[in-house]
C-alpha cells in the first residue's frame, strides 16, 4: 500500500499537475489574446473537435495502430533474422552493414511514390514504409548484442567444442536479448511514424482511412483543432505501443536475469 501511494505521488502526480497547468495557461492565453483558431486552437476547441468526430478518430486510430503493430512485428522478425546472419561472419557483416545504414538514411518521402508504383496503393505499401523506417534500430542493436559476448565465456564454449548453433542459441542469443529490447523500444515509436507517413502516400480509401489521411485532410482544409486532435491521437497511439513494448521488455528482462542468476 505504502509503495503504491509513493508511486502515485512521485510518478503520476507531478506530470498530471504539469499537464493541468499547461492546459489551463493555454486556454487562458488563447482567450486573452483572442488567437484565431487556425493559428492556435484552445484545448476546449480541440476536445470538442475530438468529441464531435469521435467515431472517425477512433476508427482511424485503430487502423493506423493495426498497421503500426504489424510493421513493428515484421521489423522485429526481419531485424533479428538479419542480425543472426550478421553475427555469423565478419565478411557478411562488413559487406552488408553499409546497406543496412542505407535503410536508416533513405529519405522515405522520396521513395514512397516509387513504392506505390511498384506495389500499388493500400495496406501492403503502408506496411513496407513502416518496416523500412523501423527496421534499422533492431538490426543494429541485435547485431551488437549477438557479437559483444564476454570473451571468457566464448573461450569456454570453444574449449568444450561447442557447435556454431550451440554458441548462437546458448551464448549469443541470451546475451543479445537486452539489446534487442532497447532496439524494439525505439523501433515501436518509429513504426507509428512509418505507418502515418505511409498513409500520406499509399493508404486510403474513401470509406476507410487512418490518422495519416486525417492529418493531411485537416491540414489541407485549415481545420487546426481537428489537426491537433489527430496529432494527439497519433501521439497517444505511439505512447500505448511504446508502453506495451517497454512493459513486455521489462517482464522478459526480469525473467531473463532470474534465469541467468539461476544458471550461475
Amino acid at each position: 500500500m505504502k509503495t503504491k501511494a509513493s508511486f502515485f505521488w512521485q510518478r503520476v502526480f507531478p506530470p498530471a499537475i504539469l499537464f493541468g497547468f499547461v492546459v489551463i495557461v493555454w486556454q487562458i492565453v488563447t482567450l486573452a489574446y483572442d488567437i484565431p483558431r487556425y493559428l492556435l486552437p484552445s484545448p476546449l476547441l480541440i476536445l470538442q473537435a475530438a468529441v464531435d468526430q469521435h467515431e472517425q478518430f477512433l476508427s482511424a486510430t485503430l487502423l493506423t495502430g493495426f498497421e503500426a503493430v504489424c510493421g513493428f512485428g515484421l521489423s522485429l522478425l526481419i531485424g533479428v533474422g538479419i542480425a543472426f546472419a550478421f553475427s555469423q561472419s565478419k565478411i557478411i557483416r562488413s559487406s552488408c552493414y553499409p546497406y543496412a545504414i542505407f535503410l536508416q538514411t533513405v529519405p522515405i518521402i522520396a521513395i514512397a511514390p516509387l513504392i506505390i508504383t511498384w506495389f500499388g496503393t493500400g495496406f501492403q505499401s503502408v506496411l513496407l514504409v513502416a518496416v523500412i523506417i523501423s527496421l534499422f534500430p533492431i538490426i543494429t542493436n541485435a547485431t551488437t548484442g549477438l557479437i559483444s559476448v564476454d570473451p571468457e565465456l566464448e573461450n569456454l564454449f570453444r574449449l568444450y567444442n561447442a557447435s556454431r548453433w550451440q554458441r548462437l542459441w546458448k551464448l549469443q542469443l541470451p546475451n543479445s536479448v537486452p539489446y534487442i529490447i532497447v532496439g524494439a523500444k525505439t523501433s515501436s515509436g518509429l513504426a507509428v511514424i512509418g505507418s502515418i507517413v505511409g498513409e500520406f502516400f499509399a493508404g486510403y480509401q474513401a470509406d476507410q482511412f487512418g490518422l495519416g489521411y486525417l492529418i493531411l485532410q485537416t491540414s489541407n482544409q485549415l481545420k487546426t483543432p481537428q489537426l491537433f486532435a489527430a496529432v494527439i491521437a497519433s501521439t497517444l497511439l505511439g505512447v500505448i505501443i511504446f508502453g506495451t513494448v517497454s512493459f513486455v521488455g521489462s517482464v522478459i528482462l526480469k525473467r531473463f536475469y532470474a534465469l541467468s542468476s539461476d544458471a550461475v
Partner: protein
Amino acid sequence: MNCKLTASLFACFAAMFFVGCGNTEPASSPKKNFTETQTSAELTSVSLALNWFPEAEHGGFYEAVVKGYYREAGLDVRILSGGPNAPVLQKVSGGSVQFGVSTADRVLLGRAQEVDVVAVMSPFQESPRCIIVHKKSGITKFEELKNLTLAISPGGTFSQYLQKKLPLEGVKIVPYPGNVSQFLLDENYAQQAYVFSEPFVAEKEGGDPHSLMASDLGYNPYTSILITTSKTISENPALVQKMVAASIRGWQSYLENPDETNKHINGLNPEMGLDILAYGVKALKPLCITEAVPKEQLGLMTAERWIELASQLVEAEAIDSDTVDPATAFTVQFLNSSE
C-alpha cells in the same frame, strides 16, 4: 606552431580588411547612392505570395513585373514562390505579406477558421481543375467514372465534392501521386489534374489523356485569385486599387503575348519548360476570357458564384453551414476602374 597560427590569423584579418575596403568603395560613390534611395522612396514595396511554384497559372502577375506595370503604378512587387502546402492564407492574414494568390474554395475554408482574407480579383472565370481519363476508356462524362482507380488529393474540396456527388461504383480512390507515371502505366487509371499542365505531360510521354472539367460538374471555384486582408482594404484602399489594376493589365497582356514572361518564369522554375508554358497559356486563355466576361472585364467575380461555392463546400462537408458569409469573402470595389 604558434608562429604559424599568428601568421594565418594575420592573413585572415588582412583579407577581411581588403574585402571590407572593396565593399565600402561603391557605397562612397554619392551618385549611385542617391538614385537608389530615390527610386525606393518613390515605390511602395509589396510582397505577393504564390500558392505554387511559378507556372502559367501565375503568368499575369509575372507579366506585370516583367512589363513594369507594377512600377508604373508606383509598386515594387516582390513575388514569393510557393510549393506544396504553401501557407499563403496564413502569411497574408498574419501580415507578413500584403497579397497572395489562392483559390476561392481555400478562401472560404480559411474564413470558416477565422482567417481574415478577402478576394479582390480573379483572372480565371472557369476553374482549370479537371480529372484526366484515358481516351481509350471511352469515358466522356463524370457519371461514367466506374470500375477504375481514381487518384485525388486527400482533403481537396473538389475530391470531397466529387465523392458526395457521384456514385463512383467500383472506383478505388487513392492519393494523388503528384505526377502522371501511374496514369501512363495503367489504362484503368484516372487522376486529378490542371488542364494546363498534366494533360500536356501525359501526351508528351505517349499517353492519351482526356480531360473532364470540374466546371462541367458544376464545381467551379475562382482560381489564381488575388487576396489580401480586410484590414489592408480598409486602411490602404489606394494600395489595393493600384495592385488590382496593374495585375489585371498584366493578365490582359500575358494572355495575348506571353513569350517574354514565359522565359522569365522558365528562368525561375526550370521544371516548367517553354513548351509546357506555351501550351499552358493557350489552355488558360478560354478559361480567363469567356463570352460572359470579355477581356475588358477580366478579373470579375459575382456574388452568385461565391454563394454557390459556399453551399457546395457545405454539401461536401468541408465547412459547417453558417460558418461563412460568402458576401464577405470577396469584393469587386477595385474592379471598376479597369472597365
